Each structure stands twice: as structure tokens, then as C-alpha cells.
């Protein structure tokens, strides 16, 4: 009888993390919280010059030093989290959700729909990502929604290809045939039978894409096409303070650490997802 009393808690079903995954998740959550509560905890307004010196060292007053204009780096990193984490997360969610959905539809439907969509997205994939970003931003101007949509568009074809390949494999499994023979509709086949079985690899792919998007966003900001001054994302912070490197200023070091900590912890988290999810690939 003791068996029937076993409750299906996450840990008992195998949805538990190892400590590396937990550290990754903790760092991601930390930055997410910082991004949300940023405006209330910044010691100084982001755009204001508060130090008389430029490239100031770490001090009691300025925990992370000051930048090339004498602005507080800590405040700028905290506010930069909003842009970097927010934009990258929104873009990667859009790219993967769209790509996976289209990929599953194409993989299950097959035929002309699959061929048409695949070739179309292949062609789109051929455009260099930074060039595409440059053209779009130059054409419609830089704003946060434009940045998010541009980045999502750049990374959608890859997510589509990946999900389609997985869905095609799962689609030939007997349990999908059984569901089809039962008379199930298209939505059930995709969402209930196929999606849970490609979730593991798709999440791993999402983590990878997230990192790429953070890097491309930094690249766009480096070119001056990303977040516009006086606000700045982390990539922009690195760019505008790059001269400080020769002066040994902390201004360039801390934004770099912030980028590294986020990207590395996302990978740590994805690589150590619960085995239940991770090993579910077909």
C-alpha cells in the first residue's frame, strides 16, 4: 500500500537539479530580479555625471568605479540588465516559440507546406545577421520593440530547422501513429504527442540562442545601433569604456563580468536541466 501513497512531487518524478544547474538558475534569477527592481536600487541616476574624475577606481562611493564621463558604473550595469536581459529574453522567446511551432507544423504536415517554408527560411538564413540588423535599424530607427523583433527574426530560421528535424523523427514513432489512428486533431498531435518529446533539445537550443542574442545585441550596440544613449546595455557599456582598459579602470571590467556571468550561467542551467527533460529527445 505504501506505493499508492507516493505523491508525484517534482523530485520524485525526477525533475531535480544538480548543484551546477542550481547555481546557474540562481545567477539567472539574480539578474532577472535586478532587471525588475533596477530603478529603485540604483545609487545614482544612470545618465548623470557624478564623479569629477573619469575612469575612477573602485571606491566607497562608487562600488564599480566610474566611466569615461564620470558616471557611476554600478548604476549603469543595474539599468543595463534591464536592456540586456529583457531584450535578449524577449527575442529568444519569440524566435524559439515561432521557430518550434512552425517547425512542428512543417514536420508533421510535410508536403508542399514543408518544402515552401523550409526553402523560404533557408533563403532568409543566408542573410548575414549583423548586416540584416544594420539595414533594419537604419531603415526604421532604433527602438526596443524593433530591436527585439529584429533579433527574433535573425534567430527564427535556425530554431525552425532544429525543431523540424526533431519533429520529423518523433512523428514516425508508433505512439504518434496510434494517436492519429485514434482520430486526434492536428493540435493534439503537435502539442501533446510531439512537443513534450522534443522539449529537452529545444531548451538546450534556446539556451544557446540566448547567448548568441546577447552577443549580437552587444555587437549592435558596439556599432551604435542598439540601445540609445544615455541608456546602455552591457555590450554598449563595454564599448564606450573600452579606452579605459589601458588606464586599468574597472569601468570596462564589470560590464564584461556581467555578460560573462549571464551567458555562462544560462549554459550551466541548460546543460544541467533535470535528466527527465534533457533525455527526452527521440
Amino acid at each position, binding site marked *: 500500500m505504501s506505493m*499508492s501513497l507516493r505523491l508525484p512531487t517534482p523530485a520524485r518524478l525526477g525533475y531535480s537539479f544538480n548543484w551546477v544547474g542550481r547555481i546557474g538558475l540562481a545567477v539567472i534569477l539574480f539578474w532577472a530580479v535586478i532587471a525588475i527592481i533596477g530603478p529603485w536600487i540604483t545609487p545614482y541616476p544612470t545618465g548623470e555625471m557624478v564623479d569629477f574624475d573619469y575612469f575612477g577606481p573602485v571606491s566607497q562611493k562608487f562600488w564599480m568605479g566610474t566611466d569615461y564621463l564620470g558616471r557611476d558604473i554600478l548604476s549603469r550595469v543595474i539599468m543595463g540588465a534591464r536592456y540586456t536581459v529583457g531584450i535578449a529574453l524577449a527575442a529568444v522567446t519569440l524566435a524559439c516559440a515561432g521557430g518550434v511551432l512552425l517547425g512542428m507544423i512543417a514536420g508533421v504536415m510535410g508536403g508542399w507546406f514543408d518544402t515552401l517554408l523550409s526553402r523560404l527560411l533557408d533563403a532568409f538564413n543566408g542573410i548575414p545577421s549583423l548586416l540584416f540588423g544594420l539595414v533594419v535599424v537604419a531603415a526604421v530607427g532604433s527602438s526596443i520593440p524593433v530591436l527585439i523583433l529584429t533579433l527574433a527574426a535573425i534567430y527564427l530560421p535556425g530554431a525552425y530547422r532544429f525543431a523540424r528535424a526533431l519533429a520529423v523523427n518523433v512523428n514516425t514513432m508508433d505512439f504518434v*501513429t496510434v494517436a*492519429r*489512428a*485514434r*482520430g486526434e486533431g492536428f493540435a493534439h498531435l503537435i502539442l*501533446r504527442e510531439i512537443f513534450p518529446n522534443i522539449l529537452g533539445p529545444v531548451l538546450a537550443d534556446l539556451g544557446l540562442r540566448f547567448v548568441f542574442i546577447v552577443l549580437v545585441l552587444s555587437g549592435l550596440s558596439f556599432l551604435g545601433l542598439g540601445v540609445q544613449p544615455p541608456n546602455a546595455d552591457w555590450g554598449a557599456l563595454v564599448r564606450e569604456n573600452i579606452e579605459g582598459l589601458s588606464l586599468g579602470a574597472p569601468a570596462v571590467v564589470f560590464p564584461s563580468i556581467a555578460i560573462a556571468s549571464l551567458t555562462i550561467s544560462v549554459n550551466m542551467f541548460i546543460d544541467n536541466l533535470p535528466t527527465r527533460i534533457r*533525455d527526452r529527445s527521440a
Partner: protein
Amino acid sequence: MTEPLVCVRDLRIGATTDSGRKVEIIKGVSFDIAPGEIVALIGESGSGKTTIALSLMGHARPGCAIHGGTIRLGRHDVTGMTERQRAALRGTEVSYIPQSAAAAFNPSKRIMDQVVEITSIHNLMPRAKAEAKARELFRALALPDPDTIGSRYPHQVSGGQLQRLSAAMALIGDPQLVIFDEPTTALDVTTQIEVLRAFRSVMGQGNMAGVYVSHDLAVVAQIADRIIVLRGGVVQEEGTTEQILTAPAHAYTRQLLDAFEPVPHVAAPKTGAQARPILQVDNLCAGYGAIRNGEPAAKILQNVSFRLERGRNLGVIGESGSGKSTLARAIAGILPAYRGNIQLDGAELKPDLAQRSKDQLRRAQIVFQLADTALNPAQSIETILGRPLTFYHGMKGAKRAARVAQLLDMVHLPNALRHRLPSELSGGQKQRVNLARALAADPELILCDEITSALDTVVAAAILDLLKELQRELNLSYMFISHDLSTVEAICDDVLVMLKGRVVEALPAARMSAEAVHPYSRLLISSIPKLDTGWLKGLEQDPELIALFARR
């Protein structure tokens, strides 16, 4: 007595599961093999028979490790060796013939290159000599065109030939011990005979010792001198083949033998001729590939017709490629038939399942062979069984949960299993869940596609008993597809014999072995191994028939 070739003492092999739990797979096994002797390891899946066989090469599968005991092979102590020394041993002292020859050959290299590979790895002999020796082995193994077969690619020979070629690959280094890992399990019965014969003659000439791993007692009876019965990593019984077959001492061995001779099916009384058959198929044609002029490129089924009365069972037998699974798929509508007529209880079924009504789909359910792939690995048993209940009967909440419990009870599974995922069940349990899902629809007809083929004999016999019990209680009709005549005899009233997409013979199951007249049916019946050590030796088959029907 002579010094044994292989000496295994108190062998212990353990593994670490994904969740980090340590389990012992082999729990202190000891046995000897004399030079020139063939010893069979018999047991169901999970009994550790393959693990023991692999350990004789000093190999443990990933995650497993030899924890204790000693294995001595000739003058080598396998357990005390470094990995490099073991590698030198493999191919020259001990070699391995895998279950699936198709997976063991590299599809992009010629057969000869792969067969002589061992001689070049171990620097045994020059290439020309090795090729000459390989051709000799091809001849000894009764392969066709022994001089030229080596220049073909693996996909250009049949499955039975490939299995014999993998034996040539294993024997080229003149090993003292050959490990056969279920080498005929994946083959058709008519092909199996030829492969077994080839193995027997080569092993007899070479005075090599062998370990034959199998779950099929009848096959083992033909080739082994001694049998070791395993269960749960422990030796249950050890004895000569004669003794095990005629006077088994252990209860488990008797159970294995009993499972081999299933209780014959008591035919349901024939209902009046006026009663509507549950399933009637007329001139059904189906195939795969691009459709031109209303006909597909590869035609599989050709003019198949039969009737299945309500409450009776129809068996469909045939070898791989005979179209029996295609027949089930065409009836279920998964593969739309391009011609012909299917009637379920007098009402016509449209060829494509998208055009059938939900109620028609509900009344005929299909159960697949591999429960591993037929159950969604991401869903719990409760979700898997609950879906058809919601889909067909609109059940929800407590009512559905109660029905799931009832269904699990019907297939003799504890209700506590409902929170588990399919990967946490054994093969037999999975097949029961697979069956319960079909029952959830309240069907009248169940199409069973080789549902016992992937199971161990004892488990398969239990599934057959369950099918019979369910039939009595629920007034079901089964269409039972199998390549195994004894399984079909155990459950079916009528049998169709299929060959190349056509029905060549239809007979009541009870009269099948005695009255079948079509030469192919006769060949099929005579090819089924019997629990008799002299069966293969005494077997005489018409070579013309074999040339005509068996694809060796």
C-alpha cells in the same frame, strides 16, 4: 577430465543507474566451458545472459563494471588484464557474433574489407592469405558465390547471409571461444534453419568452444551441448541439453518449457451464417510510394479477402515482407488502401482514417508490436490511458480516474503504476498498458500487430492468457498478426498464410499443421524449431521449395 577452456568463478557485475543507485546485475555466477563445447545461456531479458557473455571478452557495457570474481580464458586471466591486453585477446582468442548483423556491418565498406579486418588489426597474416581464408569460411558457411560475395556491400546480401558473414568475421582469427549473442532472433524461421545449420557445421569442424545466448529453448536445443538457465543474474539450473529438455529439475526451467507449449485455443462456437461478420475485407490492395493513375509505386497487398466473425479470432502469419503489418495498417486506415472494400459490422469503412467517423475509429483499435515506441515517453500511464477515455467517451476527473484504475486492473497491473512513466515499466508491463489503451476505447475489434514478438516466452504466454480472458469478458474479436505459428495456434480460430502480399492459404487453426496444402504453408510449418535435440539433423526440406519461397 580435461582442463576447461573457460573458467568463471563467482562473477559479479554491477551497474549504476541514472539516478545514481547501484544495482548488482550478475550475482555470483560460476561455470566452466570445456574446449570444443557449446554452452547456451538461456533466460528472459534482464536475466544477465548477454552481460555474462560480454564479460568473457572482458567487456562491460557502459555504466556496468565487473566488481568481483575471476574469468579465466585458456591461460589468460581476463579479469586481471589491462584494457590493452584485453583488446589483443578479442578477435584472436575470443570473438563475438552480434544479434543484428545489419547493425554490425559498416554499410559503406565492402564485406571482404570488414571480414579480414581482424587479421590486419592483429597482424595475423598477409591480406591475400586472409582473403583466401575468408573465402574458405564463406564456403564452409554455405554462402552463395563464395568467391565474389566479399566484393559486395552489406545491403546487397540478405539478412540470413549477413548473419553468416558476421560469423565469418568472428571466425577468421581462429578464436578458441565464439560468443553468439542471439544471432538468429531477428531472422525469419525459414532463414533461421540455414543459419543454424551453417553455425553447427563450422563449429563442429573447428573444434571451437562457443557460448550461445538465446531466449529460445528450441533453437538452443539444436546447437548446444549444455544449457545454463539464468534468472535475475543467478544460475537457476545447469545441465546437458537432453537433461534440461526432458528432466528439468528447477521450477523456473519447467515454466520456460511450459510456456513453449501454449494451451491450444478452444474455438468459439460458430454463430449462424446470417450474422454479420465484425470485419469483412474484399479484394483489398494497398501499397507505398507516389500514386500514379490511382496506384502506388510499390504495391504490397494484392487482392486480400477474408471474413472475421464476431467473437472469433483471425491469425495472419507470414515472414517479414509478406505484407501482414501492411494489412493491419490498411484496415486501421493508417495506410489508405487504393482499391477494395473494408466493412466493419456491415458498414463500409472509408480507406483513409480522416474520413471515418469517430465511432468507427473507436470500434476498431490497433496495438503495435513495440510497446517502447507505442507509448509516449513523456506522458504518465494515467495520461496515456485517460486520453482515449476523454476523446471517445468525454470522461473527466474522478470518473476517468476510476476507469483508468479499472483498466489497469483488467490487464492485471497495480493501480499504483498510474503515476509512472513508460520508461519505468518492464517490457511486459508496457505491452499490458498498450493493450489497456486499446481497451479504453471499448472496441469490438483489436488488431494485434506482433504484440508478443518482442517479449520473452513466459511473458508472451501471460499476454496470450490475458487476451483470452479479456475476450471472454468483453466479447472482443482479434485479428492477430504474427510470424510465429505456435502463438497463432494458441489464440486463433482461423489462420491466413500470407506470402508477398497475397493470402495463399486460409484454414481453421486447429487443422493448420495437419491439413495445410500450399507448399509455402508446409515449408513454414516444417521450419518452426521443435524442442528436440535431433530436430535440425533429421529435418528434410524440399530444396526446390526453399529456392522458391525462402529468401536466404
